[in-house]
């Protein structure tokens, strides 16, 4: 079954095909583009460490970092790796694992069908032995070590450990040297069989392609599979934080900070309206046209690397503010004061209008890029939302919605600060 959704405001349309396996396939045709971008992804990321299939009596717990490990191993097959197959089509291929998803992707400007066949083939045909699994420990170990040296990475994960008691979002996506040492072929196959079931996956393509051609290839290449029901263990996560502050030392020129405002999650996912209102609020409170930004800049407390992000996924949500400062604690205090001030007075119509226009403009401009289009379709697939829900919500939310949201979030009592400062 095929449906077409359209957005007249930005003159875009997307075709969605429901495959018999239960998987949705999204295509955005861009005939005037030279390239195409495709993702074959699964709702499986670093936080999925405890789960069971429908019918299983007990939960299975797997080592930290296994989703990322599986991503690495899936590129291999009995007759060579996927990269050497892509080398024959000219496509640029890659993959990434985040907290809640694993995506395999390629971009190309010719031979789309050949590359798409490779993508659907290797993701559906795992092949690893104890020996090939062991070999990967060296490369992944080096990746983990590279992130150990990354101050922005460390400052973020230290903050997540300060905010979250139990939720696995506090664990590094690649795991640790110790946890990946426990990974073996059997565990990888078990995770594969659970999370790489087509009913848990999605395909999104944008660019110089024909939707019907993509759907035909999917019908031909997707293997028959019975849908599974996956139950993820819930993590009793209290509203309270773990600790107020954390600091480590690394060779950096200026301390890095990450401040997080933890939010309660009654439901596993935030709604599109909650997300959009939060984005608008962050723009108003922390954007480059805010009074706070100007005040921090004039006091020489921040530089141009100051930014806010709404960090949310399955069972977690927090507003994060990150940057560099000679005095992170002073920044934290000024941010808390600005939040208190905003909560007291509410945001104004002018602030709201400006922020909304800027976010609408950025959302529309994102459609310049086939990669961004695919990423927005991935989000829609992942959250079971409409492809254009977000940009339409930006148009429809009101000042009152945003002020209501402001009353719900950004509680300094549930906030923490993480700092990476320089070595003496």
């Amino acid at each position, binding site marked *: 079954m095929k449906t077409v959704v359209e957005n007249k*405001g*930005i*003159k875009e349309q997307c075709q969605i095909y429901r495959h018999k396996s239960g998987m949705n396939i999204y295509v955005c045709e*861009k005939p*005037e*583009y*030279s*390239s195409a971008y495709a993702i074959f992804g699964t709702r499986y990321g670093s936080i999925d460490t405890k789960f069971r299939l429908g019918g299983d009596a007990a939960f299975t717990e797997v080592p930290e970092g296994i989703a990322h490990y599986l991503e690495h191993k899936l590129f291999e097959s009995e007759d060579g*790796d996927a*990269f*050497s197959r*892509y*080398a*024959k089509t*000219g*496509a*640029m*291929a890659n993959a990434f694992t985040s907290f809640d998803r694993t995506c395999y992707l390629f*971009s*190309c*400007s*010719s031979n789309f069908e050949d590359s798409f066949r490779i993508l659907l083939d290797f993701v559906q045909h795992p092949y690893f032995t104890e020996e090939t699994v062991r*070999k990967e420990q060296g*490369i992944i170990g*080096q990746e983990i*070590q*590279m992130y*150990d*040296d990354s*101050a922005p990475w460390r400052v973020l994960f230290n903050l997540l450990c300060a905010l979250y008691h139990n939720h696995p979002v506090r664990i590094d996506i690649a795991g640790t040297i110790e946890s990946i040492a426990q990974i073996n072929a059997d565990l990888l196959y078990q995770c594969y069989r659970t999370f790489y079931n087509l009913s848990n996956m999605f395909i999104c393509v944008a660019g110089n392609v024909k939707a019907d051609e993509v759907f035909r290839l999917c019908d031909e290449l997707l293997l028959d599979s019975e849908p599974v029901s996956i139950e993820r263990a819930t993590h009793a996560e209290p509203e309270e934080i773990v600790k107020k502050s954390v600091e480590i030392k*690394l*060779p*950096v*020129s*200026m301390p890095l900070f990450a401040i997080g405002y933890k939010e309660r999650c009654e439901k596993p996912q935030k709604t599109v309206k909650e997300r959009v209102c939060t984005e608008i609020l962050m*723009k108003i409170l922390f*954007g480059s*046209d*805010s*009074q706070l*930004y100007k005040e921090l*800049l004039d006091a*020489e407390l921040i*530089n*141009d690397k100051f930014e806010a992000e709404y960090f949310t996924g399955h069972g977690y949500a927090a507003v994060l503010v990150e940057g*560099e400062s000679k005095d992170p604690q002073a920044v934290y205090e000024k941010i808390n004061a600005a939040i208190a001030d905003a909560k007291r007075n509410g945001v104004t119509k002018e602030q709201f209008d*400006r*922020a909304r*226009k*800027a*976010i*609408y*403009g*950025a959302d*529309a*401009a994102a459609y*310049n*890029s*086939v990669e961004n289009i695919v990423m927005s379709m991935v989000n829609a697939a992942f959250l079971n939302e409409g492809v254009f829900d977000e940009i339409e919500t930006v148009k429809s939310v009101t000042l009152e919605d945003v002020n209501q949201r402001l009353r719900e979030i950004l509680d300094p009592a549930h906030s923490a600060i993480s700092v990476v400062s320089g*070595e003496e």
Partner: protein
Amino acid sequence: MDQIQIESLANGVEGCHIQTAQFKTSRISINLFLPIQETDVCANALLAGLLTRASADYPDFTHLNQRLNELYGATLFGDVMKFGDMQIVKFVINVLDDCYTLGGEKISQDAAELLLSMIFTPPLQNGLFSEQDFESEKRLLIEQINGEINDKRRYAITKTESALYQGEPSGISRYGDIKDAENLTNAQAVAAWKAMLQNAFVRVNIVSSTAPDAVYQKIKEYFAPLDRNAQKIDVTKKHAGRQDVLKLEEHMNVTQAKLCMAFAVSGMDDAKDKDAVRVMTDMFGGGPYSKLFANVREKQSLCYYCAARPNFQKATILVDSGILEENRQKAIDGILQQLKEMQNGNFSEDDLAASKMALTDSARTVCDSPADLDTWYALRIFENDPGIETFIGRVNSVSKEDVQRAANAVTLDTVYFLGTNGNEGGANQ
């Protein structure tokens, strides 16, 4: 898509219209090309930030950013980059096309005029920039220079380049030296701004669906009163190469060590030779199909990343990698061994085809991004035919013999290593 039209707008000022209807936005980018001179680099880098933080109509940083948000979040920024022995000071605005605004507002022309006014008529008081803005930008520049150490991969590359090009203009960092930044005065910044408008060769790139006439007209008016002394000349001299390999080592508390190896390319000066060097470098250390990725990373597990990049202006190739400290010599040997394989012609027609396909594919992908189109044409101002399809044709005419010849023109020049020296931090913490 590969339709460009270049015309002269003033003495030493070129307009390049890259016409395409595929984007939701228009991009205007003003690129000022200047020979790298130690005395000016810092001031020019400062101007990239200073000129884009205020305008005559919006002298206050906050008001300016409010205005940009009203223009549907138009993004405006300045940047500096190195291009051989030249510095490019770049000013850019990206703005949503009028047909996509919610209330039918016309914003494109306003955005274009805002950018131009910032470059040509910044708000001066008694002939100087606002002291507060100047001091603020100076601090940001100093923090930028000091902050290079934060990203160890980037830091290692910068250190390698400054050693590799010691005594050459390219050896100077794109932001300049920290001492120069600290000593910079407001009057020097004003002088650098005037000199820049006077002497730089200027390339204006416009990526848009609509005709650039109104923007061009404004630019002509701004340049008309200036007594310009700018020529379109590539002042870059290629790197000569060393007799003895230069070796440097630095110690820091890092978990993953960094190894950079710079190579000089001798001869290989005409266009066809450079095409051969491009394909050879890609086969050596470009994508996952390359010798370095397939062997040094995948087969030997010696590094997490290991990539080779050419610098055509300077006739050099830089290999950078992240490794375990104890694998240092093995990684050096492994990288040199792969170069030897290239020099001996130990690669197949399939390997060559893979590189050609990847280079072709990524060149065509440039057409799908306003920023990539802008960069592509800005960095090809000295080429007679900078078209993407021309590039693809040239790359695909390179033969196996050409590649082998290019590999044999390559010699090791500089080796830089960043590690803990085994006694600080340790490889496994």
